[in-house]
């Protein structure tokens, strides 16, 4: 999917209309099949940008074009169909605790399934091999029939990512996919994501806290205080640029909070030590 955003600014729906937007006017184009990473300190507007791209957040100003279509000019039903082309994986895995892993993964297929087929799939899961293959790629082959609340925080996060693999989306927007994974799992997860996105022909945009992982992407976007700091091939992202991006937030650059804030409470035993 080709993305073009022109002077797009966005703010949280609950924010006052006069307040400063979380994302200041931003212009950006992404070619179909491109893969890019968004980095920046906490509160830089990474999640807001992903939500705006996913049509989860209406732009305050400017516009968004997905394959040359402005989604906010579409009627609600067509916008919902278009959303089936967009896969947004939030940072906290959106899985009901009592659901089984198989159902949670197959939920990624819902947009391309009829209501009847999805009901039947609750009675007897319809695409078991597909779900199993997706889980296998994230090292979760044995968890197919487990309940979500029996999984660790890191396993839940990977189940949330496995959903992307069964979806038919052509734009994957992944928010901090590694926040509760240990380094080796993180490497596996990011490899799987990039490889599968390529296989699906999907555009992949992911926000990351780990600068060294972001370096694996060809293109890196640096956000700070809701404004674009740089949009460069990763080879040109120098230490000086990173230092400027993370000024006053050096501890995040050094990995002190690379684990993500939300998941530490849930998963205290995983403490990734990123060597830089």
């Amino acid at each position, binding site marked *: 999917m080709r993305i073009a955003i022109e002077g797009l600014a966005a703010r949280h729906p609950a924010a006052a209309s006069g307040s400063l937007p979380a994302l200041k006017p931003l212009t950006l184009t992404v070619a179909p099949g491109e893969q890019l990473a968004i980095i920046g300190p906490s509160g830089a507007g990474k999640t807001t940008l992903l939500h705006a791209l996913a049509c989860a957040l209406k732009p305050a100003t400017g516009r968004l074009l997905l394959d040359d279509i402005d989604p906010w000019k579409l009627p609600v039903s067509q916008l919902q169909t278009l959303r089936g082309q967009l896969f947004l994986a939030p940072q906290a895995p*959106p899985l009901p605790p*009592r659901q089984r892993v198989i159902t949670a993964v197959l939920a990624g297929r819902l947009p391309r399934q009829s209501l009847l087929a999805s009901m039947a799939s609750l009675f007897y899961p319809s695409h078991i091999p597909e779900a199993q293959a997706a889980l296998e790629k994230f090292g979760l082959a044995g968890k197919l029939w487990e309940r979500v609340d029996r999984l660790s925080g890191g396993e839940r996060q990977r189940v949330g990512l496995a959903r992307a693999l069964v979806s038919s*989306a052509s734009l994957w927007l992944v928010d901090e996919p590694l926040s509760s994974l240990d380094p080796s799992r993180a490497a596996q997860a990011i490899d799987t994501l990039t490889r599968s996105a390529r296989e699906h022909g999907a555009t992949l945009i992911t926000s990351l806290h780990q600068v060294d992982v972001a370096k694996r992407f060809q293109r890196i976007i640096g956000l700070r205080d809701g404004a674009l700091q740089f949009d460069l091939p990763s080879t040109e992202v120098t230490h000086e640029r990173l230092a400027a991006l993370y000024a006053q937030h050096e501890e995040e650059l050094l990995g002190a909070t690379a684990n993500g804030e939300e998941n530490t409470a849930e998963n205290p035993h995983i403490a990734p030590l990123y060597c830089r």
Partner: protein
Amino acid sequence: MNTPVSATVVSPQLRDPAWVSRLFWLLAAAVLLAPALVITEFKPWTLFEPETIKSTKRFISDFFPPKIETEFLLLVMREAWRTVAIATAGMALALIIAVPLAFISTSAISISALPGRMHALPFVLRQATRWLLIVLRSVPELVWALVFVRVVGLGPTAGVLAIALTYGGMLGKVYGEILESDETHATHALLRNGAGRLQAFFYGLLPQSAPELTSYTVYRWECAIRSSAVLGFVGAGGLGQQMDNSMKMFQGSEVATMLIAFMLLVAVADQASAWLRKMLA
């Protein structure tokens, strides 16, 4: 070092600053509630006047011994079973009313509300559904029963319909509230990824809220059993109707047996509901 504070000399800093307002509200409550005692003719001493005690004694002594003839016991059992059946059938109909209305009324699966504000039409529809539920549940089942006894005649049908309407409103409103108060992260993620409302409901919202919904339903079923016994008094069938008959005939011993049967029934329903809810937790 600790300085012992004597009771007579208390420095101003050590006086509880909240006590004036506490005293004020206590007096205010007394002043406001006193008229209620007058309005409700609250005169407990009349209970102990010799005349009252005499008639109470007569009424109570009629209860002993409870009637335990086999034929009568069988009748009581049949009527108790009918009470359970009225409650269960009423609940089943109530669910048919409540589930779709709760689904319509809950804003947790609104697609137009995803990026911020719900559109006007769905908002009006949701509000209208909510009002319908409030109207249904604000009419007591006793009133519905009186209406239906006129329409369909004496018997269990009136009780079933009365419970269906009131409980349909009650369940629908509370279901809607449960669905809205629960964590909607999973549901909204599905909607944002293009799933339909019903799909998001079955894959996100329902697994999240199912235990709470079921537990509330079981609790309401237990309430319906108690309520269907009361409905019997206005002729809507079941144990209550028999109890009413016996009371009018001054058959105290029959009333006593049925009261005991009713207490047992409520205790069993209570246990069953507690057990079911524990299973679901």
